[in-house]
């Protein structure tokens, strides 16, 4: 209790003497006047320490040792002093309030006053001093707290300069795209790959976005894609790059159409010389068209940000570019200054770097306001100015430039994307000579000729019916006016010009004179010819040239951009409000590059679905083009729309569908952690029991284990067959099933060092695709490749020796009811069911709970996701349960109810149907009108399944959700 006198007694142990002194055991008074040392006339060293505060517990056996501490005699004085000390302590205890509450509460009720602690004069006089002191103390504490959390007023925070500072600060961790603010107001933002990206809009627009993709146009900001520029001699570039690609997996960097610069190409890159293992990921590339026949070429490689960290060192080693060019310290570039001389070695980061310096300076003397005003960060704000972005090789002369965030890339998806572009962009107009880059170019006749040709083609482009009609990957360079000048006052929907033209023609035919009509028809015929030319051949090589390739011009354009504020001021000065600015401002010419994006290229239906254009812009111009595009009635999509786009397009989406790439592995781990976290957030009783559903790894797909197990199965099957061929008893197909029934491979038996790989060999894929297609199938054209060798055991064996450890990427579509009827021919179309599994870990979990009350919830196990479904083959005979064998596995480190603990048992034979692979993403496909899924299947498993299936049912598999027990029939498609 507070303020109560403590016991005064001798300590039970002499050792505590020293420590007890400072407590002054004899109640607080001892500190004041009397002092404990005066109580006894004994030597002080005995006296003072003996006043021990607190309770003394325990019995001391050797009581004899106390005698020397004890006083030998007693006097009246000591007696009196002891009494006096006690009295004073008691006095104090009596006078002081024992309750722990404040001064206020110590007053009796009838003396309490309103707002007493605010106005201390309302206290009785005797308490006023104390109240004052308390009040001061509380005020001090308050002010301290206020100082810490003091915030500027909202008005001050929203002031332009301060807002910019704040934005710049927030960009330091994750890079913002130029359209960030626009997106942040409308999208759920996610921090991914070092960028802030819009994931999905906050409004409901799943179907409208799909409709936009298939009917009109969907816009995406893809500026987060990294561009790496390679410069050097053509043959040297090709020689070094060819180590990273293989012709077997499709056209490479050296493809004739691509190398001329007329088309954009795409390849899957591998680590140098490691094909077919160790892929890095898919990239798209673009060659700059040759300039006057020189062999010095420029190549842009566009890669996903997650590939970049692996790709850049690989490129450096391949090109032997280890020498980093140290960025020079550049003086401030005033915006009006022109740098017409091409300096290939100039740092691209000039401006942001300078801006960063500004920013820090500004921060330092923000109160003086003497520093230059903060500037908007353009480009990569995260990179420190000293990081090299250019590497040069002395031996090969190749220069690698990291152009990340230097070029803005917008993607327009949909058949009407060209009309949106045509309506938004307007070819650059001539203007008076000046020091800016465009007027300079206007003087040069050859450059103007080129510009005129490009404009012609751009005008023809308006007339085509759909963006998908053009050859895929077509490139068109162009110089356009500032699109902000032609911004409509209202949001309009861009419509194709083709219909308008025809309508006007009809009208003319009806109304106007005959000769006039002829002229029109003639004109339109000329146009028709040009259009056909464009659709068949694409853009001629000359017109693919763009000034966007030149860094100096890019920087010039970025630096000289008219600010929005300036533009608005000029608009307000126009005589007729709302009319167009008559002399277009000199700075408003922007070189751009239009790159055609191919749509669906594989499969038979919905060809060229999702085709569109990519718009490449110099940095800084992002918002200037974004808003005009949005005003043309496009829909805006986020990351999840690009996933849906590639899913509908039946093309693999980058980090999701590349499980063998380092980025894909990283993605899987992230997804696993995320899904496990989500799973654990549910109360245990409401979680799905994946063990009972027979789903071994619901949050992750153990591809490596799958590939290894199937390799083992096929190897054993081969040995068996050899033995059988000697005894001459069974056919090959029978033995295979037999083997699968009997062999329950233990995972620990073999650990081949080789990693699984995704099959990307075009020839093999074509072969597989032919095999898994039934010969008599409704609504399918006969195979394009006529001479597919029939599938038999020998062909399969030779195929498997080549691709034993491979996975193949497949598309699965669920069968409709009619298909099912055809399939079974009988009245019962019911799909098979998986018998519920038993949870052997239940008892162990219970035991653990009893033993220690703690649940292993904090465990960071790596069991995670898999939007995966099991794909056991349809025609396999049921396998006996093999769980008893493996329930005796080692003690798992952590048990989560409903999830298998870590060493997983055999995957293939876990369920009643043999597992072939997992689905990575699946959904109802709006384009196909049925459920569709994309996933990977073990090649070995697929072939052994196909061998056992009758000819007409080939390629039919079973598909099961991880949360359900019923299997569904699905058709497998391998499209090349």
């Amino acid at each position, binding site marked *: 209790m507070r303020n109560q006198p403590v016991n005064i007694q*001798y300590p039970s142990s002499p050792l505590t003497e020293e420590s007890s002194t400072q407590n002054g055991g004899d109640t607080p008074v001892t*500190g004041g006047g*009397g002092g404990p040392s005066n109580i006894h006339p004994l030597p002080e060293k005995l006296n003072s320490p003996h006043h021990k505060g607190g309770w003394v517990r325990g019995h001391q056996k050797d*009581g004899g040792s106390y005698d020397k501490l*004890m006083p030998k005699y*007693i*006097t009246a004085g000591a007696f*009196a002093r002891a009494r006096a000390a*006690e009295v004073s302590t*008691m006095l104090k205890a009596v006078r002081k309030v024992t309750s722990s509450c404040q001064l206020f509460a110590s007053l009796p009720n009838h003396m309490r006053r309103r707002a007493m602690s605010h106005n201390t004069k309302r206290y009785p006089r005797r308490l006023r001093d104390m109240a004052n002191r308390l009040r001061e103390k509380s005020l001090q504490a308050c002010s301290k707290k206020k100082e810490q959390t003091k915030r500027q007023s909202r008005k001050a925070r929203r002031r332009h300069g301060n807002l910019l500072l704040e934005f710049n600060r927030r960009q330091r961790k994750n890079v913002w795209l130029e359209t960030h603010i626009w997106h942040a107001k409308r999208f759920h933002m996610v921090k991914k790959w070092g960028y802030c990206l819009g994931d999905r809009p906050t409004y409901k627009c799943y179907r409208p976005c799909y409709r936009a993709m298939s009917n009109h146009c969907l816009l995406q900001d893809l500026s987060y894609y990294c561009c790496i520029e390679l410069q050097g001699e053509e043959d040297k570039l090709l020689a070094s790059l060819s180590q990273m690609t293989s012709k077997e997996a499709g056209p490479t960097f050296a493809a004739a159409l691509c190398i001329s610069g007329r088309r954009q190409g795409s390849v899957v890159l591998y680590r140098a010389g490691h094909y077919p293992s160790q892929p890095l990921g898919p990239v798209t590339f673009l060659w700059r068209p040759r300039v006057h026949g020189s062999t010095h070429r420029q190549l842009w490689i566009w890669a996903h940000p997650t590939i970049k960290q692996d790709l850049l060192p690989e490129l450096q080693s391949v090109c032997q570019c280890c020498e980093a060019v140290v960025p020079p310290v550049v003086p401030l570039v005033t915006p009006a200054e022109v740098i017409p001389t091409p300096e290939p070695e100039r740092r691209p980061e000039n401006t942001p770097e300078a801006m960063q310096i500004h920013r820090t300076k500004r921060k330092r003397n923000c109160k003086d306001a003497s520093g230059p005003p903060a500037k908007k960060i353009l480009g990569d704000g995260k990179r420190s100015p000293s990081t090299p972005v250019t590497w040069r090789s002395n031996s090969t002369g190749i220069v690698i430039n990291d152009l990340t965030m230097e070029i803005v890339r917008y993607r327009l998806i949909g058949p009407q994307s060209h009309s949106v572009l045509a309506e938004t962009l307007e070819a650059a107009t001539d203007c008076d000579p000046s020091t800016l880059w465009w007027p300079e170019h206007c003087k040069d006749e050859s450059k103007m000729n080129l510009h005129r040709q490009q404009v012609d083609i751009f005008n023809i482009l308006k007339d085509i019916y759909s963006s998908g009609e053009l050859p895929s990957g077509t490139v068109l360079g162009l110089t356009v006016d500032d699109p902000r000048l032609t911004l409509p006052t209202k949001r309009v929907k861009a419509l194709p010009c083709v219909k308008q033209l025809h309508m006007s023609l009809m009208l003319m035919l009806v109304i106007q004179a005959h000769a006039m009509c002829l002229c029109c028809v003639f004109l339109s015929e000329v146009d028709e010819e040009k259009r056909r030319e464009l659709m068949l051949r694409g853009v001629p090589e000359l017109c693919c040239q763009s000034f966007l390739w030149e860094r100096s011009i890019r920087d010039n354009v970025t630096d000289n951009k008219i600010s929005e504020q300036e533009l608005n001021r000029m608009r307000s000065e126009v005589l007729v409000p709302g009319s167009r600015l008559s002399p277009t401002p000199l700075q408003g010419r922007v070189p751009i590059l239009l790159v055609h994006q191919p749509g669906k290229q594989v499969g038979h239906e919905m060809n060229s679905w999702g085709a569109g254009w990519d718009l490449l812009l110099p940095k800084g111009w992002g918002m200037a083009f974004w808003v005009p595009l949005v005003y043309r009635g496009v829909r805006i999509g986020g990351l999840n729309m690009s996933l849906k786009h590639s899913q509908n397009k039946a093309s693999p989406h980058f980090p999701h569908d590349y499980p063998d790439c380092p980025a894909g592995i990283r993605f899987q781990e992230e997804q696993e952690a995320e899904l496990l976290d989500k799973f654990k957030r549910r109360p245990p009783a409401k979680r799905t029991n994946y063990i009972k559903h027979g789903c071994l790894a619901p949050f992750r797909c153990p591809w490596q284990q799958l590939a290894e197990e199937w390799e083992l199965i096929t190897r054993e099957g081969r040995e068996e067959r050899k033995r059988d061929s000697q005894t001459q008893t069974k056919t090959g197909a029978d033995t295979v099933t037999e083997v699968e029934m009997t062999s329950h491979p233990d995972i620990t038996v073999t650990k081949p060092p080789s990693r699984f790989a995704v099959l990307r060999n075009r020839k093999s894929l074509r072969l597989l695709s032919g095999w898994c297609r039934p010969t008599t199938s409704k609504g399918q054209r006969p195979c394009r490749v006529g001479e597919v060798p029939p599938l038999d055991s020998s062909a399969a064996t030779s195929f498997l020796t080549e691709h034993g450890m491979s996975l193949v990427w497949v598309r699965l579509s669920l069968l409709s009811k009619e298909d099912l009827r055809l399939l079974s021919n009988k009245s019962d179309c019911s799909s098979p069911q998986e018998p519920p599994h038993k949870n052997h870990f239940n008892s162990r979990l219970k035991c653990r709970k009893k033993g220690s009350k703690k649940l292993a919830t904090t465990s960071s196990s790596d069991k995670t996701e898999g939007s995966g479904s099991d794909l056991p083959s349809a025609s396999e005979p049921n396998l006996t349960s093999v769980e008893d064998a493996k329930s005796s596995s080692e003690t798992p480190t952590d048990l989560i109810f409903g999830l298998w603990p870590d060493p997983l048992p055999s995957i293939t034979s876990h369920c009643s149907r043999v597992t072939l692979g997992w689905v990575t993403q699946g959904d109802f496909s709006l384009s196909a009108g049925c459920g569709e899924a994309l996933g990977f299947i073990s090649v070995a498993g697929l072939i052994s399944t196909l061998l056992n299936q009758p000819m007409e049912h080939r390629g039919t598999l079973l598909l099961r959700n991880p949360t359900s027990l019923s299997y569904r029939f699905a058709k497998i498609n391998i499209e090349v």
Partner: protein
Amino acid sequence: MVRLKARYLLCEINVSDRNHLLRLTDTSISAAVKTTVARIHGDYGRALCSIGFSVKYLNAHTGTVFLRFPKRCYKLLWSALPFITSIETHGQTIPCFLNCVHVGGTIRTCQKFLIRYNTQQLRRMLPKCKNEEEKQQIRKAILNCSLTQGNKEAYDDELESEEDEEE
């Protein structure tokens, strides 16, 4: 609100040799009380002791003790106190007896009584002094225990130091 009521007994411990007094501890006293109550009143009394009984304060110099008993049964327990003849501490038995000076409902009243009692004792001592030195000492002690300015200051200082600790 229900209040748990208790009675506080202010007792003097009387010993033949005053040096023995300094050996006393609170645990030893409570043990002695408990054993005596058990001896006198049997298990029932021992059980009563186990609930609300405690030694609230002990001054080994003056031999004052505050004993807390539950109000319900304090008379019963009190009746056992005269039977305490010795207290065992540190392996030694100290022959003594307890003299109950005051019974109070709160510690506060006991403290107030103790103040009065002590001053009274000091005043009684004063005329019985044998030499001048002792007289002086006792006078000083009496002055010390009355409320003076010095004491007040000490009190305030203490308050301040407490506040500092809180920070």
